C-alpha cells in the first residue's frame, strides 16, 4: 500500500483553487450515467447526497434509522465556526486555520485545514440561504459566540440545537433531490460490507433491518459518511446506533485506518449516575462562555455547593490558564477535571464530577438573558438530574464524544481504496489530535457541500460508468460472508450474557486503559484482554430472535462484534504513539506541569494502519506531516 496524500503544490492559500482547476470535469449530460452510493445521512452524508444530485449524479442513500433526519449530527449543540469576522475582532481564514492546527496539537495536514477555513464562510452563506434560522442581533445581523481554543467570536448558532438546524437544512436539500428523482433513500438499512472488484470499491452489501434480507448494490463510487466510533467505549455521547461496522469492513477490504487512538473526551457532560445508564449526555461547551468551572479547595469537602464560600473554591481553569480561563480546549479541560477528581476534590455522590457554575453570569446578565442563550440545555439537564441549573451549579464530567481518527483519506477525500470516499467524522482528516468546538459541523458540511462535489469527478472521469453488475461473483462472496456472520451470532448455544453486558465490559476495559490517560502497562494489558473478551463474546453471547425480521439484539450484536475487533487496533495505535498530543495523553510523556508533551522528532506523522489478515499485526504506514506555514510550538493556553 502506498499512501499519497495528493496535496497540491504551491502556496497554502492557492492549493484548493489549484486542485479545483486541475480536476477533470464530467460533461453535465454524462453525470446521470454515474451511480454513487452514500452511506449515512448526517451532515456530511446528507449534504454530499444533495450537492452531488444537484450536479446530476444518481445517488443511492442509506441510513440505519427510520428516517434520514435522525442521524446523530442532529444532536450537535453549540455551533459552527466560520471566519466571517462580522464582529470586527480581527478574525480571518488564516487565524481559523491556525487555531484549528494548534488546537489539533499539530497532528493534522496544513493543506486540509487551510481549505476548511477557506470554505467555512461559504457554509454559513449556504445555510442561511436554505433557511437555517441562525441567532440574530437586534439589528438583524447574525450573532456569534466564542468557543474553546479561540480568542475571537466566530461561532454561529441556533440556541443549543445548531446541529439539528443544519441537519434539517441538509435533509431538506436531499429530500428536494428525492422529489427530483435523483436520490433514493433507503432507511432502516445497515451496510454489512464494501464490495471491491479489481482493487476498486464498486458497491455494498446492505441488510434490510425490517426483513433481514441481504441486498446487493452496485455503483461507480461509494461514499462513507458513517460517523465516528465513540461507542466502542459503550458509554459515550453518541447515539445508540452509532457504530464502526461499515468503516471497519472498509478497513478489512483495504482502506487504511488513521490515528484511531485520537478520541476526544468532552469535558462538559452530565456525570455517570448508575449501572444501567445507557448513554451520556453532553452539555454544550458554549456554556463555558458564561459558566465557571470549580471544585472545593479541600479534598473530600462534601458540603452543598451553596455552603462553600467563595474563598474555599478553586476555579482551577481560571487560575491555571489565566489567558483562556474556562475556554481552554477540550482536551485540556478534560484532563484538568480528571486531575481534580483524582486528587479527591470531585463533587457529587460518585466524586467523579466538577461544578460548572453560571451564578456569576446570572448576576451579571439576568436570568432571562442566560435562559435565552442556553434554555434548552437547562431543561435537558433538569430532566436528567432533577436539578435546576439556574439555582444550583451543574455537575459535569468528561465523556467520550468525538473521534478524530478514522479512515485515511487523501486531499480529495478518497481512501486508500480507490473509489471509496470518506466524509465527516468517519475520516481522519482535519482535526489532528484534538477537535475544537464547533468544528465538526464545519467539517461535515465542507466535505459534503463543497469538497466532494469538486473532487469526485476527477476519479469518475477515469472510469466508464455502469461497469459493475451486482451479479459479479465478488458480490455473492461478500453477501455470503455477511450472512455467515449473522448466522454465527444466532447459532451460539448456551449464551450466558447479553450483548449489552459484553459491550459494557469492553467499554470499561477501554475507558480504564485507553481513556483520559494511557500508559504502556495499561495498553498492553488491554491488548491481551480484548482478544480474550472477543473469544468469550463469540461463545457466550445470547442473541434472541431470528434473522428474518426486525431484531434489535441481533443488530447490536453485529456492531459490538466489530467494536471488539476495532478496539484492538485503537489500543495498538495508542501503544505505538509514545508521545502525548491533544487528546492522546501518554503518562510517560508529560511536561513537569502535567501538560501533554509532544515528540515532534519521532511522531510528527499520521499513523495509517493497513489490514494484514485476522492473525497478523496490521502494517503501520507513516504519512509524515510537513509544517511549512506554522511554527510547531508547545501549546500554551496560560
Amino acid at each position, binding site marked *: 500500500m502506498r499512501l499519497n496524500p495528493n496535496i497540491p503544490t504551491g502556496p497554502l492559500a492557492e492549493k484548493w483553487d489549484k486542485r479545483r482547476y486541475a480536476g477533470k470535469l464530467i460533461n453535465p449530460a454524462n453525470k446521470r450515467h454515474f451511480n454513487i452510493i452514500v452511506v449515512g445521512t448526517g451532515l456530511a452524508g446528507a449534504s454530499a447526497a444533495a450537492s452531488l444530485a444537484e450536479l446530476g449524479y444518481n445517488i443511492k442513500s442509506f441510513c440505519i434509522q427510520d*428516517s434520514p433526519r435522525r442521524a446523530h449530527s442532529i444532536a450537535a449543540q453549540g455551533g459552527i465556526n466560520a471566519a466571517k469576522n462580522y464582529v470586527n475582532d480581527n478574525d480571518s481564514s488564516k487565524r481559523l486555520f491556525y487555531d484549528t492546527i494548534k488546537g489539533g496539537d499539530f497532528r493534522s495536514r496544513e493543506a486540509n485545514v487551510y481549505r476548511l477555513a477557506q470554505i467555512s464562510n461559504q457554509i454559513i452563506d449556504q445555510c442561511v440561504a436554505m*433557511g437555517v434560522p441562525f441567532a440574530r442581533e437586534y439589528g438583524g445581523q447574525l450573532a456569534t459566540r466564542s468557543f474553546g481554543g479561540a480568542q475571537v467570536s466566530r461561532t454561529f448558532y441556533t440556541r443549543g440545537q445548531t446541529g439539528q438546524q443544519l441537519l434539517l437544512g441538509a435533509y431538506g436539500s436531499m*429530500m428536494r433531490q428525492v422529489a427530483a428523482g435523483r436520490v433514493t433513500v433507503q432507511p432502516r438499512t445497515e451496510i454489512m460490507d464494501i464490495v471491491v472488484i479489481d482493487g476498486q470499491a464498486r458497491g455494498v452489501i446492505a441488510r434490510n433491518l425490517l426483513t433481514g434480507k441481504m441486498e446487493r448494490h452496485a455503483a461507480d463510487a461509494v461514499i462513507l459518511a458513517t460517523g465516528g466510533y465513540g461507542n466502542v467505549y459503550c458509554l459515550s455521547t453518541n447515539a445508540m446506533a452509532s457504530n464502526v461496522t461499515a468503516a471497519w469492513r472498509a478497513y478489512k477490504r483495504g482502506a487504511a485506518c488513521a490515528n484511531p487512538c485520537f478520541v476526544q473526551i468532552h469535558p462538559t457532560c452530565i456525570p455517570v449516575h448508575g449501572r444501567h445508564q445507557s448513554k451520556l449526555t453532553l452539555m454544550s461547551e458554549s456554556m463555558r462562555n458564561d459558566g465557571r468551572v470549580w471544585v472545593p479547595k479541600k479534598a473530600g469537602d462534601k458540603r452543598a455547593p451553596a455552603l462553600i464560600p467563595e474563598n474555599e473554591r478553586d476555579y482551577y481553569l481560571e487560575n491555571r490558564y489565566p489567558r483562556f480561563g474556562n475556554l481552554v480546549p477540550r482536551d485540556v479541560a478534560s484532563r484538568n477535571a480528571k486531575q481534580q477528581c483524582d486528587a479527591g476534590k470531585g463533587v457529587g455522590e460518585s466524586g467523579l464530577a466538577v461544578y460548572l457554575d453560571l451564578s456569576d453570569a446570572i448576576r451579571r446578565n439576568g436570568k432571562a438573558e442566560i435562559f435565552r442563550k442556553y434554555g434548552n440545555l437547562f431543561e435537558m439537564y433538569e430532566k436528567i438530574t432533577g436539578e435546576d441549573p439556574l439555582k444550583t451549579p451543574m455537575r459535569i464530567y468528561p465523556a467520550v464524544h468525538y473521534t478524530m481518527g478514522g479512515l485515511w483519506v487523501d486531499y480529495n477525500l478518497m481512501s486508500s481504496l480507490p473509489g471509496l470516499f470518506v466524509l465527516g467524522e468517519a475520516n481522519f482528516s482535519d482535526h489532528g489530535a484534538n477537535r475544537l468546538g464547533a468544528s465538526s459541523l464545519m467539517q461535515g458540511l465542507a466535505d459534503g457541500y463543497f469538497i466532494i462535489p469538486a473532487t469526485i469527478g476527477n476519479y469518475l472521469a477515469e472510469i466508464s460508468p455502469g461497469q459493475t453488475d451486482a451479479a459479479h461473483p465478488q458480490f455473492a462472496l461478500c453477501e455470503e460472508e455477511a450472512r455467515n456472520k449473522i448466522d454465527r451470532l444466532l447459532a451460539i448455544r448456551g449464551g450466558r450474557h447479553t450483548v449489552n453486558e459484553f459491550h459494557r465490559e469492553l467499554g470499561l476495559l477501554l475507558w480504564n486503559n485507553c481513556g483520559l490517560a494511557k500508559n504502556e502497562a495499561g495498553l498492553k494489558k488491554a491488548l491481551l484482554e480484548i482478544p480474550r473478551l472477543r473469544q468469550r463474546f463469540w461463545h457466550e453471547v445470547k442473541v434472541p430472535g431470528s434473522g428474518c425480521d426486525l431484531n434489535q439484539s441481533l443488530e447490536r450484536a453485529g456492531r459490538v462484534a466489530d467494536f471488539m475487533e476495532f478496539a484492538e487496533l485503537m489500543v495498538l495505535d495508542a501503544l505505538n504513539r509514545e508521545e502525548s498530543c491533544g487528546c492522546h495523553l501518554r503518562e510517560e510523556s508529560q511536561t513537569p506541569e502535567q501538560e501533554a508533551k509532544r515528540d515532534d522528532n519521532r511522531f510528527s506523522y499520521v499513523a495509517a494502519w493497513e489490514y494484514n489478515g485476522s492473525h497478523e499485526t496490521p502494517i503501520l504506514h507513516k504519512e509524515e506531516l510537513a509544517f511549512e506555514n506554522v511554527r510547531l510550538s508547545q501549546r500554551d493556553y496560560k
Partner: protein
Amino acid sequence: MAIINLKLKVWRQKSCDEPGKFQDYASGPVTNDMSFLEMLDVLNERLTMDGEEPIAFDHDCREGICGMCGAMVNGYAHGRQKSTTLCQLHLRHFKDGETIVIEPFRAKVFKPIKDLIVDRSAFDHIITAGGYISINVGGAPDANAVAIPQDTAELALDAASCIGCGACVASCPNAAAMLFTGARVSQFALLPQGNPERSRRVKSMLAKMGELGFGNCGNERECEASCPKNISIRNIARLNREFIRAAF
C-alpha cells in the same frame, strides 16, 4: 435516589399482519434516577436471558433531539411530563407499585412494524413535497446580506425545532399532521429566503398530507399539549393563513 417496582402492560405485536395484545411484566427493582428507556433496557436484558424476545422500540440519540423514540405511556404521547420525549422521561415521575400502560403511537398512517415501533415515513414524504428552499449549493449571497429581525428569527426557530417524532399525530383524534406540516411551512413563511416558493410550498405539502391519509385539524389542541418541543398551534393558524393566501 429510591428503588421502586412498577407493573408494566406492554403492547406486543409481531408484525403489521398479526394481531397484537397487552402483556404484563414486572419492572423488577429499578432506581428512580433511571430513564424510562433504561427501564425497558433492563427488562429486555431479563427477557433475553429468560429466552423471550425483547420488546422492540425505536430510539437513538437518547437526548430528546433525534425524534426517533416515542410511545403512548398511560395514554399520553411520550408520557405525561410536559415538553419531554420518551427518552428524557425519568422514573422519578412514577410511584412505587404504579401500573404503566405502554403502547405504540396509533394512527392510520403510522402502520405498526413491531411491538412499539411504527412506520413514520409519511413525514419524509410531506417534507419531500416542499419542506425546503430550492437552492443549489454554490452562489449563495453573503449571509448578512439580508437582515432578519431577531424576533422573526426566533419565531422561525421555534417552528423549526420540530423533531418529527409523530406525537402530534398520535395525540390528535383526527390523526392530523397539521402541527408537523405547519411547523415546517411556518419556518419558511417567516423567513425572507422562503418567500419565492411560499405559495407552491404550502399547497404542495398540504396536498401530500391529505393524500397520505392524515386527517384535518379539529382545534382539539392535543398536538400542542403533547409536543415534546412545545411547538405552538399558532403554526397551524399560520399554515391556514398561508394556504388561504396561496389560494387567492
